[in-house]
Protein backbone atom coordinates (compact mmCIF):
# COMPACT_ATOMS: atom_id res chain seq x y z
CA UNK A 1 0.00 0.00 0.00
CA UNK A 2 1.25 3.48 -0.84
CA UNK A 3 1.10 6.53 1.43
CA UNK A 4 -1.97 8.63 0.74
CA UNK A 5 -1.43 11.07 -2.12
CA UNK A 6 2.10 9.76 -2.69
CA UNK A 7 4.29 12.27 -4.54
CA UNK A 8 1.34 14.63 -4.99
CA UNK A 9 0.34 17.69 -3.02
CA UNK A 10 2.76 20.34 -1.84
CA UNK A 11 6.09 20.65 -0.01
CA UNK A 12 5.81 19.80 3.67
CA UNK A 13 8.03 20.80 6.52
CA UNK A 14 8.39 18.65 9.60
CA UNK A 15 9.69 20.06 12.88
CA UNK A 16 11.78 17.43 14.59
CA UNK A 17 11.74 15.58 16.86
CA UNK A 18 8.05 16.29 17.48
CA UNK A 19 7.01 15.32 13.93
CA UNK A 20 9.03 12.13 13.61
CA UNK A 21 5.87 10.09 14.07
CA UNK A 22 4.33 11.80 11.02
CA UNK A 23 7.29 10.81 8.85
CA UNK A 24 7.31 7.27 10.17
CA UNK A 25 3.55 6.91 9.74
CA UNK A 26 3.75 8.23 6.20
CA UNK A 27 6.29 5.68 5.07
CA UNK A 28 5.26 2.89 7.43
CA UNK A 29 2.85 1.49 4.88
CA UNK A 30 5.80 0.89 2.50
CA UNK A 31 7.14 -1.69 4.98
CA UNK A 32 10.29 0.28 5.64
CA UNK A 33 13.48 -1.54 4.92
CA UNK A 34 16.41 -1.60 7.43
CA UNK A 35 18.21 0.97 5.28
CA UNK A 36 15.37 3.49 5.74
CA UNK A 37 15.39 2.87 9.49
CA UNK A 38 19.17 3.37 9.40
CA UNK A 39 18.75 6.72 7.62
CA UNK A 40 16.21 7.95 10.16
CA UNK A 41 18.45 6.85 13.06
CA UNK A 42 21.47 8.49 11.45
CA UNK A 43 19.89 11.93 11.10
CA UNK A 44 18.35 11.60 14.57
CA UNK A 45 21.82 11.01 16.02
CA UNK A 46 22.93 14.26 14.40
CA UNK A 47 20.10 16.13 16.06
CA UNK A 48 18.09 16.74 12.91
CA UNK A 49 15.59 19.46 13.75
CA UNK A 50 13.86 19.95 10.41
CA UNK A 51 12.88 17.83 7.43
CA UNK A 52 11.42 18.88 4.12
CA UNK A 53 9.36 16.50 2.03
CA UNK A 54 9.85 17.37 -1.63
CA UNK A 55 6.83 16.23 -3.59
CA UNK A 56 6.73 15.00 -7.21
CA UNK A 57 10.44 14.34 -7.19
CA UNK A 58 11.69 12.99 -10.51
CA UNK A 59 14.39 10.54 -9.43
CA UNK A 60 16.28 9.57 -12.58
CA UNK A 61 17.09 6.15 -11.24
CA UNK A 62 13.56 5.26 -10.22
CA UNK A 63 12.33 6.63 -13.56
CA UNK A 64 14.53 4.15 -15.41
CA UNK A 65 13.40 1.34 -13.12
CA UNK A 66 9.83 2.38 -13.84
CA UNK A 67 10.31 2.75 -17.60
CA UNK A 68 12.19 -0.52 -18.01
CA UNK A 69 10.45 -2.73 -15.50
CA UNK A 70 7.55 -1.43 -13.39
CA UNK A 71 5.63 -0.19 -16.40
CA UNK A 72 5.43 -3.85 -17.42
CA UNK A 73 3.92 -4.98 -14.12
CA UNK A 74 0.25 -5.00 -13.15
CA UNK A 75 0.76 -2.87 -10.05
CA UNK A 76 -0.44 0.71 -10.37
CA UNK A 77 2.68 2.57 -9.28
CA UNK A 78 3.38 6.29 -9.57
CA UNK A 79 6.21 7.24 -11.89
CA UNK A 80 7.78 9.64 -9.41
CA UNK A 81 9.16 9.73 -5.89
CA UNK A 82 9.13 11.80 -2.75
CA UNK A 83 12.39 13.12 -1.40
CA UNK A 84 13.24 13.87 2.20
CA UNK A 85 15.83 16.52 3.09
CA UNK A 86 17.20 16.90 6.62
CA UNK A 87 18.81 19.78 8.52
CA UNK A 88 20.39 20.15 11.95
CA UNK A 89 20.31 23.87 12.56
CA UNK A 90 22.03 25.48 9.58
CA UNK A 91 23.78 22.27 8.59
CA UNK A 92 22.26 20.38 5.67
CA UNK A 93 22.48 16.66 6.44
CA UNK A 94 21.48 15.35 3.03
CA UNK A 95 18.59 13.72 1.24
CA UNK A 96 16.94 10.40 0.59
CA UNK A 97 14.59 9.72 -2.26
CA UNK A 98 11.69 7.38 -1.47
CA UNK A 99 10.48 5.17 -4.31
CA UNK A 100 6.90 3.81 -4.20
CA UNK A 101 8.00 0.16 -4.01
CA UNK A 102 6.83 -1.73 -0.97
CA UNK A 103 9.63 -3.17 1.14
CA UNK A 104 12.35 -1.40 -0.93
CA UNK A 105 11.66 2.31 -0.58
CA UNK A 106 15.18 3.80 -0.45
CA UNK A 107 16.24 5.16 -3.80
CA UNK A 108 18.97 7.76 -4.54
CA UNK A 109 20.40 8.95 -1.23
CA UNK A 110 23.28 11.19 -0.17
CA UNK A 111 23.94 11.73 3.52
CA UNK A 112 26.69 13.49 5.41
CA UNK A 113 28.65 10.78 7.27
CA UNK A 114 28.35 12.88 10.43
CA UNK A 115 30.73 12.93 13.40
CA UNK A 116 30.50 9.16 13.90
CA UNK A 117 32.01 8.38 10.49
CA UNK A 118 33.66 11.52 9.14
CA UNK A 119 37.18 10.54 10.22
CA UNK A 120 36.80 7.06 8.80
CA UNK A 121 35.20 7.58 5.39
CA UNK A 122 37.72 8.41 2.66
CA UNK A 123 35.50 7.97 -0.39
CA UNK A 124 33.49 11.12 -0.08
CA UNK A 125 32.29 13.60 -2.66
CA UNK A 126 29.98 16.61 -2.75
CA UNK A 127 26.60 16.23 -4.40
CA UNK A 128 24.04 18.96 -4.95
CA UNK A 129 20.27 18.80 -4.59
CA UNK A 130 18.01 21.49 -6.00
CA UNK A 131 14.63 21.38 -4.24
CA UNK A 132 12.34 24.23 -5.19
CA UNK A 133 15.06 26.31 -6.79
CA UNK A 134 17.50 26.18 -3.89
CA UNK A 135 20.91 24.56 -4.19
CA UNK A 136 21.93 22.40 -1.28
CA UNK A 137 25.30 20.66 -1.14
CA UNK A 138 26.22 17.67 0.96
CA UNK A 139 29.38 15.57 1.25
CA UNK A 140 28.92 11.83 1.36
CA UNK A 141 29.00 8.55 -0.51
CA UNK A 142 26.08 7.85 -2.87
CA UNK A 143 23.65 5.21 -1.68
CA UNK A 144 20.75 3.28 -3.14
CA UNK A 145 19.05 0.09 -2.04
CA UNK A 146 18.06 -2.63 -4.47
CA UNK A 147 14.40 -2.78 -5.49
CA UNK A 148 14.67 -6.59 -5.30
CA UNK A 149 13.23 -7.36 -8.72
CA UNK A 150 14.82 -5.22 -11.41
CA UNK A 151 18.13 -4.78 -9.57
CA UNK A 152 19.89 -6.69 -6.80
CA UNK A 153 22.68 -5.86 -4.38
CA UNK A 154 25.40 -6.11 -7.00
CA UNK A 155 23.61 -3.65 -9.30
CA UNK A 156 23.10 -1.27 -6.38
CA UNK A 157 26.76 -1.37 -5.34
CA UNK A 158 27.99 -0.87 -8.90
CA UNK A 159 25.61 2.11 -9.13
CA UNK A 160 27.05 3.61 -5.91
CA UNK A 161 30.63 3.30 -7.13
CA UNK A 162 29.77 4.57 -10.63
CA UNK A 163 27.93 7.58 -9.18
CA UNK A 164 30.85 8.33 -6.86
CA UNK A 165 33.35 8.27 -9.73
CA UNK A 166 31.00 10.37 -11.87
CA UNK A 167 30.92 13.08 -9.21
CA UNK A 168 34.58 12.76 -8.23
CA UNK A 169 36.36 11.88 -11.45
CA UNK A 170 33.91 12.96 -14.13
CA UNK A 171 33.27 9.48 -15.48
CA UNK A 172 29.88 9.10 -17.24
CA UNK A 173 26.75 9.27 -15.08
CA UNK A 174 25.04 5.86 -14.91
CA UNK A 175 21.52 4.93 -13.96
CA UNK A 176 20.41 1.62 -12.51
CA UNK A 177 19.16 0.70 -15.99
CA UNK A 178 22.61 1.31 -17.48
CA UNK A 179 23.99 -1.14 -14.95
CA UNK A 180 21.30 -3.74 -15.57
CA UNK A 181 21.99 -3.44 -19.31
CA UNK A 182 25.76 -3.69 -18.86
CA UNK A 183 25.43 -6.82 -16.71
CA UNK A 184 22.79 -8.37 -18.98
CA UNK A 185 25.32 -8.84 -21.80
CA UNK A 186 26.68 -11.86 -19.94
CA UNK A 187 23.37 -13.19 -18.63
CA UNK A 188 22.45 -16.70 -19.68
CA UNK A 189 19.06 -16.57 -17.94
CA UNK A 190 16.31 -13.98 -18.19
CA UNK A 191 17.43 -10.54 -17.05
CA UNK A 192 14.35 -9.53 -15.07
CA UNK A 193 13.38 -10.31 -12.42
CA UNK A 194 17.06 -10.50 -11.54
CA UNK A 195 18.45 -13.32 -9.39
CA UNK A 196 21.71 -11.47 -8.84
CA UNK A 197 25.03 -11.18 -10.60
CA UNK A 198 28.01 -13.52 -10.73
CA UNK A 199 31.66 -12.50 -10.25
CA UNK A 200 32.10 -12.58 -14.00
CA UNK A 201 29.06 -10.38 -14.64
CA UNK A 202 30.23 -7.83 -12.08
CA UNK A 203 33.69 -7.64 -13.64
CA UNK A 204 32.43 -7.36 -17.18
CA UNK A 205 29.68 -4.85 -16.25
CA UNK A 206 32.27 -2.62 -14.58
CA UNK A 207 34.46 -2.83 -17.68
CA UNK A 208 31.57 -1.86 -19.95
CA UNK A 209 30.79 1.07 -17.69
CA UNK A 210 34.37 2.39 -18.04
CA UNK A 211 35.44 1.25 -14.57
CA UNK A 212 37.49 -1.82 -15.44
CA UNK A 213 38.32 -3.59 -12.18
CA UNK A 214 41.16 -5.61 -10.75
CA UNK A 215 39.87 -8.73 -9.00
CA UNK A 216 41.43 -10.60 -6.11
CA UNK A 217 40.14 -13.94 -4.84
CA UNK A 218 40.72 -14.08 -1.09
CA UNK A 219 39.27 -17.46 -0.25
CA UNK A 220 40.80 -20.45 -1.99
CA UNK A 221 38.76 -22.95 -3.95
CA UNK A 222 38.64 -26.43 -2.38
CA UNK A 223 41.81 -28.13 -3.65
CA UNK A 224 42.84 -24.98 -5.50
CA UNK A 225 45.70 -22.54 -5.11
CA UNK A 226 46.22 -21.75 -1.45
CA UNK A 227 49.10 -19.26 -1.66
CA UNK A 228 46.74 -16.29 -1.52
CA UNK A 229 47.46 -12.98 0.26
CA UNK A 230 47.64 -13.18 4.06
CA UNK A 231 45.75 -10.84 6.38
CA UNK A 232 48.51 -8.22 6.41
CA UNK A 233 48.69 -8.18 2.61
CA UNK A 234 44.91 -7.86 2.28
CA UNK A 235 44.92 -5.00 4.80
CA UNK A 236 47.66 -3.19 2.87
CA UNK A 237 45.78 -3.74 -0.38
CA UNK A 238 42.56 -2.30 1.02
CA UNK A 239 44.31 0.65 2.66
CA UNK A 240 46.21 1.51 -0.50
CA UNK A 241 42.96 2.12 -2.39
CA UNK A 242 41.02 3.67 0.48
CA UNK A 243 43.96 6.04 1.06
CA UNK A 244 43.54 6.97 -2.61
CA UNK A 245 39.79 7.62 -2.31
CA UNK A 246 38.99 4.60 -4.50
CA UNK A 247 36.16 2.41 -3.16
CA UNK A 248 36.47 -1.38 -3.36
CA UNK A 249 33.72 -3.91 -3.92
CA UNK A 250 33.69 -6.65 -1.31
CA UNK A 251 32.15 -10.02 -2.08
CA UNK A 252 31.02 -12.11 0.87
CA UNK A 253 28.78 -15.16 0.69
CA UNK A 254 25.92 -14.14 -1.59
CA UNK A 255 26.30 -10.43 -0.94
CA UNK A 256 28.23 -7.49 -2.41
CA UNK A 257 28.99 -4.25 -0.56
CA UNK A 258 31.34 -1.29 -1.07
CA UNK A 259 34.29 -0.57 1.22
CA UNK A 260 34.57 3.21 1.56
CA UNK A 261 36.65 3.92 4.65
CA UNK A 262 38.71 2.59 7.52
CA UNK A 263 39.87 3.54 10.99
CA UNK A 264 41.84 2.23 13.96
CA UNK A 265 40.77 2.85 17.53
CA UNK A 266 44.42 3.15 18.50
CA UNK A 267 47.83 2.35 17.06
CA UNK A 268 48.10 -1.40 16.60
CA UNK A 269 44.36 -1.98 17.07
CA UNK A 270 42.55 -4.08 14.46
CA UNK A 271 41.44 -2.23 11.36
CA UNK A 272 37.79 -1.25 11.39
CA UNK A 273 36.24 -0.71 7.98
CA UNK A 274 33.27 1.28 6.79
CA UNK A 275 31.12 -0.35 4.19
CA UNK A 276 28.14 0.84 2.23
CA UNK A 277 25.60 -1.97 2.32
CA UNK A 278 22.39 -1.62 0.34
CA UNK A 279 20.66 -4.00 2.75
CA UNK A 280 21.71 -2.13 5.91
CA UNK A 281 22.66 1.50 5.28
CA UNK A 282 25.18 3.92 3.77
CA UNK A 283 27.82 3.76 6.52
CA UNK A 284 28.21 0.51 8.45
CA UNK A 285 31.19 -0.62 10.48
CA UNK A 286 32.69 -4.01 9.77
CA UNK A 287 35.94 -5.88 10.29
CA UNK A 288 38.17 -7.90 8.04
CA UNK A 289 37.22 -11.55 8.23
CA UNK A 290 39.45 -13.91 6.28
CA UNK A 291 39.55 -17.66 5.93
CA UNK A 292 42.87 -18.31 4.19
CA UNK A 293 42.48 -22.10 4.21
CA UNK A 294 38.97 -21.88 2.81
CA UNK A 295 37.64 -24.47 5.25
CA UNK A 296 36.39 -22.25 8.05
CA UNK A 297 39.44 -22.93 10.23
CA UNK A 298 40.46 -19.27 10.11
CA UNK A 299 37.20 -18.03 11.60
CA UNK A 300 36.73 -17.12 15.24
CA UNK A 301 33.91 -18.38 17.44
CA UNK A 302 32.01 -15.09 17.03
CA UNK A 303 32.59 -14.79 13.28
CA UNK A 304 29.62 -15.16 10.98
CA UNK A 305 30.67 -17.42 8.07
CA UNK A 306 28.44 -15.34 5.79
CA UNK A 307 30.67 -12.32 6.41
CA UNK A 308 33.87 -14.05 5.33
CA UNK A 309 35.68 -12.06 2.68
CA UNK A 310 35.74 -14.01 -0.56
CA UNK A 311 36.51 -11.56 -3.33
CA UNK A 312 37.62 -7.97 -3.84
CA UNK A 313 37.06 -5.84 -6.93
CA UNK A 314 38.92 -2.58 -7.36
CA UNK A 315 37.18 -0.51 -10.06
CA UNK A 316 39.64 1.98 -11.56
CA UNK A 317 38.32 5.28 -12.94
CA UNK A 318 41.14 6.11 -15.37
CA UNK A 319 44.43 5.05 -16.86
CA UNK A 320 45.85 3.41 -13.77
CA UNK A 321 47.73 0.59 -15.45
CA UNK A 322 50.30 0.06 -12.71
CA UNK A 323 49.07 -1.57 -9.50
CA UNK A 324 50.22 -0.78 -6.00
CA UNK A 325 51.83 -4.17 -5.46
CA UNK A 326 53.71 -3.80 -8.74
CA UNK A 327 54.92 -0.37 -7.67
CA UNK A 328 56.21 -1.11 -4.18
CA UNK A 329 59.47 -3.04 -4.74
CA UNK A 330 60.54 -0.77 -7.62
CA UNK A 331 59.66 2.38 -5.68
CA UNK A 332 61.92 1.34 -2.80
CA UNK A 333 64.75 0.64 -5.26
CA UNK A 334 64.32 4.06 -6.89
CA UNK A 335 64.33 5.85 -3.55
CA UNK A 336 67.40 3.82 -2.58
CA UNK A 337 69.09 4.92 -5.83
CA UNK A 338 68.49 8.55 -4.93
CA UNK A 339 69.99 8.04 -1.48
CA UNK A 340 73.02 6.29 -2.98
CA UNK A 341 73.92 9.48 -4.82
CA UNK A 342 75.21 10.73 -1.49
CA UNK A 343 73.51 14.10 -1.72
CA UNK A 344 70.73 13.81 0.83
CA UNK A 345 70.71 13.72 4.58
CA UNK A 346 70.59 9.97 5.33
CA UNK A 347 71.12 10.66 9.01
CA UNK A 348 67.58 12.01 9.11
CA UNK A 349 66.40 8.38 8.94
CA UNK A 350 68.76 6.99 11.54
CA UNK A 351 66.69 7.62 14.65
CA UNK A 352 63.28 6.99 13.13
CA UNK A 353 61.20 3.87 12.56
CA UNK A 354 60.19 4.08 8.92
CA UNK A 355 57.13 2.88 7.10
CA UNK A 356 56.08 3.23 3.46
CA UNK A 357 52.63 4.10 2.18
CA UNK A 358 51.45 4.27 -1.43
CA UNK A 359 48.39 5.88 -2.95
CA UNK A 360 47.27 6.83 -6.43
CA UNK A 361 45.86 10.27 -7.17
CA UNK A 362 45.03 12.90 -9.76
CA UNK A 363 48.34 14.66 -10.39
CA UNK A 364 46.61 18.05 -10.73
CA UNK A 365 45.11 17.79 -7.28
CA UNK A 366 48.38 16.42 -5.91
CA UNK A 367 50.34 19.45 -7.17
CA UNK A 368 47.66 21.82 -5.93
CA UNK A 369 47.80 20.38 -2.41
CA UNK A 370 51.58 20.23 -1.98
CA UNK A 371 51.80 23.63 -0.34
CA UNK A 372 49.05 23.05 2.18
CA UNK A 373 50.65 19.76 3.17
CA UNK A 374 53.66 21.77 4.37
CA UNK A 375 56.19 20.39 1.90
CA UNK A 376 59.32 22.54 1.71
CA UNK A 377 59.04 25.27 -0.90
CA UNK A 378 61.89 24.17 -3.22
CA UNK A 379 60.28 20.72 -3.52
CA UNK A 380 56.84 22.20 -4.21
CA UNK A 381 58.24 24.38 -6.98
CA UNK A 382 60.34 21.56 -8.37
CA UNK A 383 57.56 18.94 -8.43
CA UNK A 384 55.10 21.34 -10.03
CA UNK A 385 57.38 21.94 -12.99
CA UNK A 386 57.55 18.29 -13.99
CA UNK A 387 55.08 17.25 -16.68
CA UNK A 388 52.82 14.50 -15.35
CA UNK A 389 50.08 12.14 -16.53
CA UNK A 390 46.60 12.47 -15.05
CA UNK A 391 47.20 9.69 -12.49
CA UNK A 392 50.36 9.20 -10.45
CA UNK A 393 51.32 6.69 -7.78
CA UNK A 394 52.95 8.31 -4.79
CA UNK A 395 55.09 6.37 -2.31
CA UNK A 396 55.65 8.15 0.96
CA UNK A 397 58.45 7.46 3.45
CA UNK A 398 56.86 8.09 6.84
CA UNK A 399 58.02 8.24 10.43
CA UNK A 400 55.83 5.49 11.88
CA UNK A 401 55.64 6.94 15.36
CA UNK A 402 54.52 10.35 14.12
CA UNK A 403 52.06 8.74 11.68
CA UNK A 404 50.40 6.74 14.45
CA UNK A 405 50.11 9.89 16.53
CA UNK A 406 48.40 11.66 13.64
CA UNK A 407 51.24 14.18 13.34
CA UNK A 408 52.93 15.38 10.13
CA UNK A 409 55.04 12.32 9.36
CA UNK A 410 56.27 12.37 5.76
CA UNK A 411 60.04 12.52 5.31
CA UNK A 412 60.04 12.18 1.54
CA UNK A 413 58.14 10.78 -1.40
CA UNK A 414 58.39 9.45 -4.92
CA UNK A 415 55.90 9.93 -7.76
CA UNK A 416 55.57 7.35 -10.53
CA UNK A 417 53.56 7.55 -13.75
CA UNK A 418 50.48 5.31 -13.25
CA UNK A 419 50.61 4.30 -16.92
CA UNK A 420 54.03 2.68 -16.35
CA UNK A 421 54.54 -0.99 -17.05
CA UNK A 422 55.13 -3.19 -14.03
CA UNK A 423 58.55 -4.16 -15.41
CA UNK A 424 59.81 -0.62 -15.96
CA UNK A 425 58.57 2.11 -13.65
CA UNK A 426 58.49 5.56 -15.15
CA UNK A 427 59.55 7.67 -12.16
CA UNK A 428 58.74 11.38 -12.29
CA UNK A 429 60.08 13.13 -9.20
CA UNK A 430 61.14 12.48 -5.62
CA UNK A 431 62.17 14.38 -2.54
CA UNK A 432 64.03 13.09 0.49
CA UNK A 433 65.60 15.16 3.26
CA UNK A 434 68.00 17.56 1.53
CA UNK A 435 67.59 16.12 -1.96
CA UNK A 436 65.31 16.63 -4.93
CA UNK A 437 65.30 14.24 -7.89
CA UNK A 438 63.74 14.52 -11.32
CA UNK A 439 63.76 11.72 -13.86
CA UNK A 440 63.95 13.08 -17.37
CA UNK A 441 65.66 9.91 -18.58
CA UNK A 442 66.56 6.58 -17.00
CA UNK A 443 68.82 8.23 -14.42
CA UNK A 444 67.59 10.82 -12.01
CA UNK A 445 68.88 14.34 -12.04
CA UNK A 446 69.67 14.73 -8.36
CA UNK A 447 69.92 18.15 -6.81
CA UNK A 448 71.01 18.95 -3.27
CA UNK A 449 68.45 21.24 -1.73
CA UNK A 450 69.00 23.37 1.30
CA UNK A 451 65.60 23.13 2.92
CA UNK A 452 63.83 22.21 6.09
CA UNK A 453 63.90 18.51 6.92
CA UNK A 454 60.81 18.81 9.13
CA UNK A 455 58.23 16.10 8.43
CA UNK A 456 55.18 17.32 6.55
CA UNK A 457 51.57 16.10 6.24
CA UNK A 458 50.65 12.94 4.40
CA UNK A 459 48.75 12.97 1.12
CA UNK A 460 47.01 9.71 2.04
CA UNK A 461 43.35 10.28 2.79
CA UNK A 462 43.17 8.17 5.95
CA UNK A 463 46.71 8.47 7.27
CA UNK A 464 46.69 4.71 7.94
Amino acid at each position, binding site marked *: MLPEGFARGAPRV*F*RLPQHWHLIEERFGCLEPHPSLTWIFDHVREQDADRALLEHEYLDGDYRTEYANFYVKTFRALPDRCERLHFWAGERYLGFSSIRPVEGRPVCRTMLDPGPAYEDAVSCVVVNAAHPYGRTLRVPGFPFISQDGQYARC*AHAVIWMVAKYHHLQNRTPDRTISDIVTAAAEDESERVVPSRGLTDHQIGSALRRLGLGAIQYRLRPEPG*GESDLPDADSVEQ*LVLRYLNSGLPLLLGTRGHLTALIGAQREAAGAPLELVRCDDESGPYCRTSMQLDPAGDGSGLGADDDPDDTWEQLFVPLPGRIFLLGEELEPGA*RRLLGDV*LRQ*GVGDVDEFATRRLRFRAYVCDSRLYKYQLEERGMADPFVRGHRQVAAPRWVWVTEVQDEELAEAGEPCVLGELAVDATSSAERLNALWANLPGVHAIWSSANPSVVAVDSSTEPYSTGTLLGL
Partner: protein
Amino acid sequence: MSMFPLPVPMQADYDGEDSMSSDKKPRRVSPVARLRDDAGVDPESFDRLVEGMGHGETKRSSGEPEKDPAALPEGFDDRAVEGLEQRRERYAAARRVAKAGGRPRLYE
Protein backbone atom coordinates in the same frame (compact mmCIF):
# COMPACT_ATOMS: atom_id res chain seq x y z
CA MET B 1 3.03 20.09 10.15
CA SER B 2 2.48 23.03 7.83
CA MET B 3 1.15 22.52 4.32
CA PHE B 4 2.68 25.75 2.98
CA PRO B 5 5.99 26.00 4.68
CA LEU B 6 8.12 27.68 2.04
CA PRO B 7 8.30 31.45 2.43
CA VAL B 8 6.59 33.18 -0.48
CA PRO B 9 8.82 35.99 -1.79
CA MET B 10 7.32 39.47 -1.75
CA GLN B 11 6.63 40.89 -5.16
CA ALA B 12 8.67 43.95 -4.27
CA ASP B 13 11.76 41.79 -4.01
CA TYR B 14 11.56 41.28 -7.74
CA ASP B 15 10.12 44.22 -9.63
CA GLY B 16 10.62 46.83 -6.92
CA GLU B 17 10.00 49.73 -9.31
CA ASP B 18 8.23 51.67 -6.61
CA SER B 19 10.22 50.64 -3.61
CA MET B 20 13.76 50.52 -4.93
CA SER B 21 15.83 53.20 -6.52
CA SER B 22 17.29 52.32 -9.90
CA ASP B 23 20.85 51.95 -8.57
CA LYS B 24 19.63 49.32 -6.12
CA LYS B 25 17.88 47.27 -8.77
CA PRO B 26 19.46 43.89 -9.38
CA ARG B 27 21.50 44.02 -12.56
CA ARG B 28 21.61 41.17 -15.01
CA VAL B 29 24.78 39.16 -14.60
CA SER B 30 26.04 37.56 -17.79
CA PRO B 31 26.68 33.83 -17.74
CA VAL B 32 30.38 34.44 -18.36
CA ALA B 33 30.66 36.91 -15.48
CA ARG B 34 28.88 34.47 -13.21
CA LEU B 35 31.34 31.70 -14.06
CA ARG B 36 34.26 34.10 -13.73
CA ASP B 37 33.05 35.01 -10.26
CA ASP B 38 32.77 31.34 -9.37
CA ALA B 39 36.29 30.72 -10.63
CA GLY B 40 37.62 33.58 -8.51
CA VAL B 41 39.65 36.45 -9.94
CA ASP B 42 43.33 36.42 -9.13
CA PRO B 43 45.15 39.28 -10.88
CA GLU B 44 48.49 37.91 -9.71
CA SER B 45 47.87 34.42 -10.99
CA PHE B 46 50.60 34.61 -13.66
CA ASP B 47 53.24 35.90 -11.24
CA ARG B 48 52.34 33.27 -8.69
CA LEU B 49 52.42 30.53 -11.31
CA VAL B 50 55.88 31.30 -12.64
CA GLU B 51 57.46 32.18 -9.31
CA GLY B 52 60.57 30.10 -8.82
CA MET B 53 60.42 28.54 -12.26
CA GLY B 54 63.53 27.78 -14.21
CA HIS B 55 66.42 25.59 -13.24
CA GLY B 56 67.70 25.68 -9.75
CA GLU B 57 71.36 25.40 -8.96
CA THR B 58 72.51 21.84 -9.40
CA LYS B 59 75.09 21.09 -6.79
CA ARG B 60 75.53 17.52 -7.89
CA SER B 61 74.13 15.78 -10.93
CA SER B 62 73.35 12.13 -11.36
CA GLY B 63 76.09 9.61 -11.70
CA GLU B 64 77.29 6.32 -10.42
CA PRO B 65 76.16 5.27 -6.95
CA GLU B 66 78.49 6.63 -4.32
CA LYS B 67 77.18 5.00 -1.19
CA ASP B 68 77.63 1.42 -0.18
CA PRO B 69 74.18 -0.18 -0.71
CA ALA B 70 74.50 -1.86 2.68
CA ALA B 71 74.52 1.59 4.28
CA LEU B 72 70.98 2.37 3.12
CA PRO B 73 68.40 2.84 5.89
CA GLU B 74 66.14 -0.08 6.71
CA GLY B 75 63.23 -0.35 4.31
CA PHE B 76 65.22 0.75 1.27
CA ASP B 77 67.50 -2.29 1.35
CA ASP B 78 67.35 -5.46 -0.69
CA ARG B 79 65.79 -7.58 2.03
CA ALA B 80 62.75 -5.28 2.28
CA VAL B 81 62.40 -5.30 -1.50
CA GLU B 82 62.59 -9.11 -1.60
CA GLY B 83 59.75 -9.32 0.96
CA LEU B 84 57.63 -7.09 -1.25
CA GLU B 85 58.41 -9.25 -4.30
CA GLN B 86 57.15 -12.32 -2.39
CA ARG B 87 53.99 -10.48 -1.36
CA ARG B 88 53.49 -9.44 -4.97
CA GLU B 89 53.47 -13.13 -5.95
CA ARG B 90 50.58 -13.74 -3.58
CA TYR B 91 48.59 -10.84 -5.01
CA ALA B 92 49.25 -12.25 -8.47
CA ALA B 93 47.93 -15.64 -7.31
CA ALA B 94 44.76 -13.99 -5.98
CA ARG B 95 44.22 -12.30 -9.34
CA ARG B 96 44.95 -15.54 -11.22
CA VAL B 97 42.36 -17.49 -9.22
CA ALA B 98 39.80 -14.69 -9.63
CA LYS B 99 40.39 -14.60 -13.37
CA ALA B 100 40.12 -18.38 -13.68
CA GLY B 101 36.64 -18.25 -12.19
CA GLY B 102 36.23 -21.53 -10.36
CA ARG B 103 33.12 -22.04 -8.28
CA PRO B 104 30.70 -19.36 -9.45
CA ARG B 105 29.55 -16.91 -6.80
CA LEU B 106 26.23 -15.18 -7.01
CA TYR B 107 25.59 -11.84 -5.33
CA GLU B 108 21.91 -11.28 -4.55
